[in-house]
């Protein structure tokens, strides 16, 4: 008990220091949870003192077990719901991320006068621009990333087709908006002399084509490296259709494509992934991105594909908002249960509280006793809820619920958040009942007898 008291006090002091740091350096919003928890621990710590009657709190809990268990279950239910939802929605978001990544980039930049629609339909590029523009635009603050320089040639049967020969640079500026946030490349790179086959091409070429097989494209020999995203895989077996145009592509290194075209240092287009950040629910932000790109790269035309952007936005926001609504509803439910439990507790114990005040307990001591009880409810509830929510989410048969391709995993960080959230919610729910307890008028309640 002594050790618990010392640890609680130390934790309260450390959290207090963090709160002061946040108050001075970051913001009040960031400091507020630390302040709340620190205060809770300080007051609770007072009653944890072996000489200050934590045993009294424990005995009181033991006497009114039903109410205590109900309050713990409310916190556990809310925590389990939050952890369950967050674990599933994290997995859901990850699956969505993979799916929307497969949907490709949503911005095409072509030389002014070029037909971006024809290019996106798989036609050969006509007008050229400098490959250096890819690095140039990637270095700006345009809210887009995963830039990809591209050369595109339609190959006829006599040139190794039918296929769309696509020379690519690989991801440029695959760091989150220039803020140093590393991001995994969206696409893949092709080594010089090699080629990567789209699904339709792999299907047409048949079982005989393996990694290492030779293909002659436009009179030049290339070595088959695999299919998109699966280097070294046998093309016919591994190729999965992505979309009609990309399935028809044969990807090669940009240098090889430039040589075949006789246009060193040139490209037909830059593809990019623009930030989907709607303002007031509209997609005008994408227009802003187009304008910015055209400002930084005079002589080009930027086009955004809003259907892809919209799909990404709706999918991401849908998952996020559903999670937020569930969390909010469960938090309110838990707060209500704790509030009513504590309030009825205070009402039932008015005479007891009056007696405590009459024998010399201060209102602060009474508040400390209630807060210690609330802390116990919150921590027990959070622990039970985290265990139930995590196990439930991980053990659930997602496929049977129609959630195909989702693999939920236990998130230990959410345990800390669950405990913190449960403490904050319980503390907030306890404010009015604790105030009522401290405002008990002993003369009034003791006189009535």
């Amino acid at each position, binding site marked *: 008990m002594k050790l618990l008291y010392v640890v609680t006090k130390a934790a309260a002091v450390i959290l207090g220091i963090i709160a002061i740091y946040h108050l001075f350096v970051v913001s009040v919003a960031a400091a507020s949870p630390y302040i709340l928890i620190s205060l809770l621990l300080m007051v609770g710590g007072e009653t944890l003192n072996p000489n200050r009657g934590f045993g009294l709190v424990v005995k009181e809990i033991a006497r009114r077990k039903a109410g205590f268990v109900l309050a713990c279950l409310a916190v556990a239910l809310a925590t389990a719901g939050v952890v369950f939802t967050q674990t599933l929605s994290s997995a859901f978001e990850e699956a969505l991320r993979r799916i929307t990544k497969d949907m490709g980039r949503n911005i095409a930049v072509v030389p002014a006068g070029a037909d971006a629609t024809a290019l996106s339909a798989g036609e050969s590029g006509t007008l050229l621009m400098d490959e250096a523009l890819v690095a140039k635009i990637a270095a700006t603050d345009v809210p887009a990333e995963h830039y990809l320089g591209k050369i595109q040639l339609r190959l006829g049967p006599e040139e190794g087709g039918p296929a769309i020969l696509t020379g690519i640079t690989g991801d440029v500026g695959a760091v989150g908006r220039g803020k140093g946030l590393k991001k995994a490349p969206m696409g893949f790179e092709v080594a010089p002399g090699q080629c990567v086959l789209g699904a339709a091409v792999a299907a047409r070429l048949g079982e005989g084509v393996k990694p290492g097989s030779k293909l002659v494209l436009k009179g030049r020999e290339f070595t088959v490296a695999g299919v998109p995203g699966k280097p070294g895989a046998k093309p016919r077996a591994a190729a999965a259709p992505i979309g009609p145009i990309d399935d028809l592509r044969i990807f090669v290194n940009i240098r090889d494509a430039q040589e075949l075209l006789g246009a060193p240092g040139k490209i037909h287009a830059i593809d990019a992934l623009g930030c989907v950040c709607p303002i007031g629910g509209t997609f005008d932000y994408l227009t802003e991105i187009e304008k910015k790109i055209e400002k930084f790269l005079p002589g080009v035309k930027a086009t955004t594909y809003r259907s892809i952007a919209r799909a990404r936005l709706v999918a991401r926001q849908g998952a996020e908002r559903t999670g937020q609504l569930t969390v909010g509803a469960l938090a309110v439910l838990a707060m209500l249960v704790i509030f009513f439990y504590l309030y009825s507790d205070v009402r039932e114990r008015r005479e007891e509280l009056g007696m*405590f*005040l*009459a*024998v010399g307990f*201060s*209102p602060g001591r009474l508040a400390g006793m209630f807060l210690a009880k609330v802390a116990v409810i919150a921590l027990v509830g959070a622990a039970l809820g985290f265990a139930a929510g995590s196990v439930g989410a991980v053990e659930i048969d997602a496929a049977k619920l129609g959630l195909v391709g989702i693999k939920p995993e236990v998130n230990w960080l959410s345990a800390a958040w669950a405990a913190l959230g449960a403490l904050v919610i319980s503390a907030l729910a306890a404010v009015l009942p604790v105030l009522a307890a401290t405002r008990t008028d*002993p*003369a009034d309640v003791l006189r009535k*007898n």
Partner: protein
Amino acid sequence: MIAIQGLTKVFRAASGDQVRALDGIELQIKTGEFAALTGPSGSGKTTLLFAIGGLVTPTAGGVSVGGAEVSAMSAPARARWRAQSLGFVFQTFYLVPYLSAVENVCLARLALGEGGAAARKSAEAILARLGLAERFGHRPGELSAGEQQRVSLARALANAPAVLLADEPTGNLDGPRAEEILALLAEENRRGQTIVLATHNEAVAARASRRIRLDRGKLVG
């Protein structure tokens, strides 16, 4: 010594009317005295007792106990002072049902921030003195009314208070049990304990060394 000067307490009733529970009380009770506040129901006995104990804030006038100006103290200071200097005994005992007899007595020490073995030992000694040596671990529900009131008295005496305040301490007890409690109070008074007891029962009041009569909030004798 308890010194009460011009003590007035006015309550506002639910109807909005003002009720003058105490009206300009002037009173002194000496250290070691056993004083009984008597009078009919509604005469202001309990209000006066609670004002001495700092549970009621006077509308006018003041209360001083052992030189401490009770009415001028802040709420936390008054709580501390009550824990150190006062013991309360109530008609309905107000024992905590989930605590044993010893633990109930220890509450008074806990109010001072003292607990552990020393507090328990001292609580056991008081309970033994009041004839409850066999009842340390019993909860209130397992004790008779007379025993419960003795536990309540032990709790009031636990911090060796300067003043013991008792509000109708025999009101819920039958004749023999009431007699036991009165004998214990008399015994404590013989040990030097200042006692102020509120009762409407003249026979109980007769056990005190001084009778103070109230009627409609005023001292009448």
